[in-house]
């Protein structure tokens, strides 16, 4: 029987939907919290009282400094998770579930590690990076692209077959 000469399916690139990106991010945070950052939980629990934390921190400024260092180290681990996964695979574990891929805006170029790091600097809970916690979602909602991705020249897409 002759083979049917059907046109091959094409993959087209579309912007990843907002709900998928949000859910993927939540899943990544859960993975980080449950499997990667758990050693820090016991450190924080042993440093802080179970009640009146704000009063305790006000009474112990040395502990506040130590907390900042610990948060900085945790942010480094979170940054490495997102950057390495996106650089090596183009997607994190949460992205894999929703078939989201991160690519360079310049189609001729591969995504670089620097691009991945720059686009994930919002994980640092310090000025000015925490401003991205507000600016990125607003810009994402309006322009379908975050400041982080805009400056790192990346885009977050899905491939759909047609």
């Amino acid at each position, binding site marked *: 029987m002759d083979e049917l000469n059907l046109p091959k399916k094409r993959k087209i690139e579309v912007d990843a939907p907002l709900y998928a990106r949000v859910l993927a991010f939540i899943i990544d945070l859960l993975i980080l919290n*449950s*499997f*990667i*950052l*758990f*050693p*820090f*939980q*016991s*450190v924080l*629990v*042993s*440093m802080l*009282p*179970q*009640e009146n934390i704000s009063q*305790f921190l006000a009474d112990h400024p*040395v*502990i506040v400094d*130590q907390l900042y*260092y*610990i948060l900085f*180290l945790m942010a480094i*681990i979170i940054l*490495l*998770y997102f950057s*390495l*996964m*996106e*650089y*090596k*695979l*183009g997607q994190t*574990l949460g992205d*894999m579930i929703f078939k989201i*891929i*991160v*690519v*360079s805006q310049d189609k001729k170029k*591969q*995504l670089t590690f620097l691009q991945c790091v720059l686009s994930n600097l919002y994980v640092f809970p310090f000025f000015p990076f925490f401003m991205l916690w507000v600016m990125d979602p607003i810009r994402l909602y309006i322009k379908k692209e975050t400041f982080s991705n805009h400056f790192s020249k990346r885009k977050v897409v899905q491939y759909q077959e047609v």
Partner: protein
Amino acid sequence: MKQTESRPSKMKTSVKILIGLVLLSLFMATTINIFADGTLEGNVALIPIYGPIMVGSSDGLGSSSSTSSNAIVGFIKEANENPSIKAIVFDINSPGGSAVASEEIARAIINSEKPTVAWIREVGASGAYWISSSTDHTIASPVSVTGSIGVIASYLEFSEFLDDWNVTYRRLVAGEFKDMGSPLKELTPQEEVRLQKLIDDIREYFIDVVAENRGLERSHVESLATGEVFLGKDAIQLGLIDELGSQPEVITYIENELNETVEFVRYQASPSLLELLGGIIFDKEIKLSSDVSGGIRT
């Protein structure tokens, strides 16, 4: 970006990255633990007693909703064995709890070789007052709630509810009073007399302990042992506490006792990872019979 990577290859890379990050996380946390261990040094142990007092482990999830006598007795032992600790302060905000647990902690305090202070916050009643009376000095706010010298073993009885629903309690016991206090059957007059005697005996013991600890006449303590609560401003008049105040007064008292500046070091139970992630761990209070659902509490 390696879009052309096969799925097994992607999983391999993912696993390698995750393992690497977990190892890095463990290394960083261990390093922090090594350097952070010495930063909370002090000369006065601060042991919190929050929430209901029970014999077993505290609740999980990092919450402070109950206190374990096992943990507190352990902390008191630790503080006694630590040469840098010169005094022990109990930060109390508890409505009481298990009679046994309260007695265990009180006994450990009495046997402590170091000066002990009870600092009552919002509530230090019943079993928590039992504990605070065992310390060398008790400080409370004028509006702290304390006292409640008495015993409670009340419970809900469902016998009539079961009758309404045609459910029968099949009584199979060896020992007439084995199911005394079971919520599934009506409490008989003889059982009520026996249970009442038990809690009366515990109350008498409670009164003896408070009278001895506070250096008060037994008859005076007995007159106060109606279970009623007292505000701090009244408790000091009644001889139940030593001083009105809060943290500054606690610090002043200890500094006068020790002749050195107070540096608190907090002793508290660190929930394990499983306790943080796995939910609340419930502990059974020690019960006189397996069917007394509420337990006996002070």
